[in-house]
């Protein structure tokens, strides 16, 4: 199924929750903030959020450089 990640189409397996999706990208859970359909998903609720077709995901990774 297809979701939109930062405005770009991306394929995910049906049934994938947000925590699994983040891990699948090789990202550490603490380095990203994620909105699904314009609502921030708190860290401790990521396992409960199962991605749905057409979901609009906005992901921002913390930046430490300067």
């Amino acid at each position, binding site marked *: 199924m297809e979701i939109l990640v930062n405005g770009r189409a991306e394929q995910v397996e049906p049934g994938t929750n947000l925590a699994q999706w983040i891990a699948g990208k090789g990202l550490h859970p603490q380095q990203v903030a994620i909105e699904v359909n314009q609502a921030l998903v708190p860290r401790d609720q990521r396992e409960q959020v199962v991605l749905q077709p057409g979901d609009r995901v906005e992901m921002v*990774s*913390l930046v430490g*450089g300067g």
Partner: protein
Amino acid sequence: MTTTPDNRFDRQTRFAPFGTAGQAKLEQASVFLLGAGALGGVIAQSLVRSGVGRLVFADRDSVDWTNLPRQVLFEDRHAAASTPKAWAALEALERIGGPTRLEAHATHVDADNLVELSAGCDVLLDGSDNLETRYLLNDLAVKSDRPWVYAGVIGGGGLVMPIRPNVGPCLRCLFPEPPPPGTLETCDTSGVLMPAVGSVASLAAGMALRLLVDPAGTPLRLMEIDAWHGELRTLSIPRHPECPACGKRTFPFLEAPLSERTLTLCGRNTVQVRGQGVEVDLDAMARRLAQAASRVERLGPLLRAELDGHRVTLFRDGRALIEGTEDRGTALAIYDRFLA
């Protein structure tokens, strides 16, 4: 129209949302800026040229040749002489002129001295190059109820977030804990472009002006700007009721003094820096350091690297031995730049 020193700020006061009222407020304002390198240099220049009343800034580094493509206050001669960035920045900012009172500190900033250095400043600005410092700034801003602007840059872009504690979200509403050491790329490992620095820092400086002259109108959003892909995004994020800083009012970064992070190993010309209590993936760290270090070795339970001329040994618990110095600030600078 003839121009004189008296109408120096004419063009910006003609911008109606800023106006002469904004200029008057700016000239009364006092700002603290942590870091005078890439982001800090552009931010400092913007504020001084705009005519902020007082700018206090601190930087622990000295200028090197790799700084010159993006650190706008420095020149070849500063790199040749390894001039402390705070002094080189002061000299460059003084040459601009204008009404700003400048106060430069060539020092490592941490929980031990941040409160004092930033005393009397209305807004705190982020020109730092590591997460430890940003979580420290967030703790101080929330605890002392002062606005601050988070800014971070890497590669071709970065993030900016103006923060009004207890009004909008703070850094820890979004990112409650810093990720473990070695997770994030740094400018030393993945590089950075001048236009990325300029974009991020200019946006941060704009938000600083807005917080000073029109705090209630400041957009309290996370903004992402990418000067390479030509992309802009904003995320409107609510405050997190369980936020460890602005929700629960715990300030561990501010309450962990320098003396608890480091231990000078007498007679060995070595400083030990304590980890953050999180296990480090030494293989991942070795891969990340490959670009920045002149030599990296993985030896069983430890990693050894040559960083900025210092032999560094890193253990799985995050503890590191920085050889070739007895100065805690120097050791922490290396730790925070490369290993945090």
